[in-house]
């Protein structure tokens, strides 16, 4: 698999505070990578490092195979477009002037693409209205338009739907999907709005306390989040024998815990286990969402 971004043991310290603590992650080309973590987990810090706004304390990363210690990293950054935290736009300028400014910074030979980019983000009719008079959603879309100005292959969006109204959230989601599916742009989205990420992402990375807890594809996550019955028994060895005989699908989690899939007759299962002197301690139905999965993964409290 080809990766757009790879990090290896990345660390960033602010004084004694470890914002990133050996983060290793891989963003596959063509994916929408959902970067999940609570506030202060290190999402924005990683994005700042990748964008060159800050330098890592330890560790390394590569963008399109170019290591951050190589001089060529600035060239590979030209393939990146990013909106870090708040949209980076001149509030005293119109949407068009903002894009013209970005085109000049990029050294683009003409302003021909501006109308297309404004149309793409739905800001073609803003005229002489200055960005300071835009709604939050419009500013967010202008920020994305500026990030798209250099025709990037890799788009980094830090909390893109934070503070947006429902319509703004839908518009931003559709825009991201369009950019990924129609233009083939790899997207890294950091967010803690998990339901929204679940509708977009094809890969997930779960970060907590500055390190990666788990990386998983959307397909794997879907399988992990399948509706199931979680049972705690005295022996999963006996349980597996009974389930094999009944032809049921299951996953053994430990010597006492297992997940059972499909339609199960609880009475029949209980009787069969009782015949073999296997006790059922608990049995509960589990319909995991991304949110539940995340909570299970990092724990409700502090995760070390």
């Amino acid at each position, binding site marked *: 698999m080809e990766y757009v971004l790879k990090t290896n043991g990345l660390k960033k310290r602010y004084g004694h505070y470890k914002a990133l603590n050996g983060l290793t992650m891989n963003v596959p080309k063509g994916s929408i990578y959902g970067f999940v973590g609570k506030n202060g987990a290190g999402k924005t810090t990683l994005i700042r490092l990748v964008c060159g706004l800050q330098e890592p304390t330890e560790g390394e990363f590569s963008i399109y195979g170019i290591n951050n210690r190589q001089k060529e990293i600035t060239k590979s*950054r030209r393939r990146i477009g990013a909106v870090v935290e708040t949209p980076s736009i001149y509030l005293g300028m119109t949407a068009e002037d903002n894009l013209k400014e970005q085109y000049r910074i990029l*050294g683009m030979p003409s302003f021909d693409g501006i109308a297309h980019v404004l149309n793409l983000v739905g800001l073609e009719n803003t005229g002489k209205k200055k960005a300071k008079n835009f709604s939050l959603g419009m500013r967010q879309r202008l920020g994305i338009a500026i990030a798209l100005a250099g025709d990037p292959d890799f788009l980094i969006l830090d909390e893109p739907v934070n503070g947006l109204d429902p319509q703004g959230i839908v518009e931003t989601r559709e825009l991201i999907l369009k950019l990924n599916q129609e233009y083939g742009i790899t997207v890294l989205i950091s967010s803690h709005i998990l339901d929204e990420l679940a509708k977009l992402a094809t890969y997930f990375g779960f970060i907590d306390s500055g390190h990666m807890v788990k990386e998983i594809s959307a397909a794997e996550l879907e399988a992990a989040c399948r509706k199931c019955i979680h049972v705690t028994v005295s022996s999963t060895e006996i349980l597996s024998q009974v389930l094999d005989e009944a032809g049921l699908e299951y996953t053994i989690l430990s010597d006492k815990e297992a997940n059972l899939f499909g339609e199960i007759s609880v009475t029949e299962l209980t009787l069969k286990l009782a015949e073999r002197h296997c006790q059922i301690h608990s049995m509960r139905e589990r319909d995991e969402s991304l949110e539940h999965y995340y909570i299970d993964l990092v724990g409700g409290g502090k995760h070390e």
Partner: protein
Amino acid sequence: MSKLLSANFMRLRKNKVFWGGILFMAAAGIYYPIGRYIGMKHDGYTAHLEDGFFICAVFAAVLLSVFCSLFVGTEYSDGTIRNKIIIGHKRTDLYLSNLLTNMATGAVMCMVWFAAYLCAGIPLLGFFQVRGAVILLLTIAVLLLSCAFSALFTMVSMLNASKAGAAVICMLVAFLLLFTGTYLNARLQEPETYPVYDYVVVGEDAADMAAGMQEVAAEEKNPHYVGGTKRKVYEFLYDFMPGGQAVQCSSMESERPHVLCLYSGIIFIIATSIGMAVFRRKDIK
């Protein structure tokens, strides 16, 4: 860096603070010689064209402190400095492009003052009474001084992510430097001695005392006079510090304008070197 400069100059064209500064310099440049002319006619003293020609050094210091902090500060407050770094521009280029833009602004403001002053002043006060070489040297000194101020204010603005904080610091620095310059000027102007007049009675007749009084003048040491090593330090600071230079240029009292040019160059190099070195390592949010 040409891309960054091009973007900066386009932004400058629409910058209200820039145009406000230009308008102020033009208006003040016209008003000042007219004011001198009216004063000359009213009070009967003789005014020359060069008398207030270089006072723009003081105005430029204050205006640049406002402009530099707001122009660069906007990059931080609007977050647009990130756009430039994300797409791969080097931090050195970013710093230098902002410095060059600020320097150009300072130079344009001074030029506008000179042009406005000459347009209004020559018809009213005639041409310069001092040698052209002196005017040229002081003009260069003022332009280099504005570059030194630009370098100082660029350093403060680039290293301070708070636009308001940078603006306050820059203005405080500008006024502090100018007040220090004025203070040093006042201390160095103190004479070493001053005459003390005593009146002694030379006649014997007390009734004729007034007629018998004689004025005796004696030189007495001025306790406020700065002498020795302290004077040398004061003189160096007066020449070296931009505030002192601004006072010297505006009053045309400098005997060594070329030394002022050299000191401006040194301040420029020091401020820019420190600014770039720290900015290269600065964490940007």
